[in-house]
């Protein structure tokens, strides 16, 4: 049940310099929990103190923002591509 996670430049230092990670899990919450367990430095960048997602972090499963498809409970399956993207002002580069 491995999904590939694409890590944005701003978070790479906190995950050992990796641009991608391969992690198993049935939900986004489970997958992020494993990432945090392996790389504790990234926890404060991904989660708020109350366990909710950092407001400036958008997480996509196969290009769908998880906030609108169940949040941390959003289901993942083998081969899914998970993309972490910082929220930026409109007008990002093409």
């Amino acid at each position: 049940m491995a999904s590939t996670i694409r890590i944005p430049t701003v978070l790479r230092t906190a995950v050992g310099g990796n641009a991608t990670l391969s992690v198993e899990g049935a939900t986004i919450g489970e997958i992020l929990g494993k990432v945090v367990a392996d790389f504790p430095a990234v926890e404060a960048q991904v989660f708020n103190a109350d366990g909710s997602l950092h407001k400036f972090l958008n997480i996509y499963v196969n290009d769908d923002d998880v906030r609108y498809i169940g949040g941390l409970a959003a289901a993942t399956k083998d081969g899914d591509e998970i993309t972490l993207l910082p929220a930026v002002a409109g007008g990002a580069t093409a």
Partner: protein
Amino acid sequence: MTRYASVLDLIGNTPVVDASALSPKANVKIWVKLEGRNPAGSVKDRVALSLVEAAERDGILTPGAPGQILIEPSSGNTGIALAMVCRMRGYHLKVVLPSNVSVERTQLLQVWGAEIITSPGAEGSNGAVRMAQSLAAENPNWVFLYQYANPANPDAHYRTTGPEILADVPEITHFIAGLGTSGTLMGVGKYLKDHKPGVQVWAIEPPSGETVDGLRSLDDGYIPPVFTQNNGAELLDRKVVVRPKQSIEFTRAMAEIGLFVGISSGAIMAGAVKCAQEIPDDVEATIVTVACDDGWKYLSTGAWTDDVDDVVERAKKIIYF
């Protein structure tokens, strides 16, 4: 032909055209509202006029009075639209523009006499917003309309774009638009939900490249106040990111059915097709999307003529939205 007293009277009432030839399903219609028909060439004409008129109503601006200066951050269309409106009203406009916008955008600003202040390209629109905020704070006599936080931005769409869409396509089931300031999505989305509950509102996020790479920390991120002021997270039903290559491919596909529109319109069409694919075969659906502008400003990308991968690489370094 109808006659108009002012170019400003040409803003809005844009046509909607059937683009169902690109729908992957016979039971799903796709209509595109062509905002490139506005006089300064984009959906932002509505926003620029609304921002200026609201400031005039509030007494912040006075048409014809000398020495009035506005400042605004914009990677393109809002600056161009504001430049046109300011020229008509007699205001001096300073636009903070990332250094890596396409050459057509810079020249269009100059057509209507805007002054250009360059912000670091690597910081993208975020950098332009920060610089404009700082310059506005240093020069309190300058008028900072700040489209990202001004209620007159979504209000333009609540008053005009939304009613036009519902009048022209009353059978609408889904509205899909790009997420920039979020003004279009918040204004049209709220209008549709108020007047036809059940309409789904999908946001298409433009693909991100070096703007995101330039962030020093996640805390440098940005959510437009217009989005939070309108409870965007509640209003939207879905938010989908579209990749650069897909945006170019759909921009070309739209040209094949006669629609010469900008790259963000291709991205939004890609999102519409994704939406259509999810609709069951036994359900009739009607998607309305917005083509924010026409293709003219993007010709230098080679988007219609060059190898797709080359265009994508080039587009990563230049802001086109």
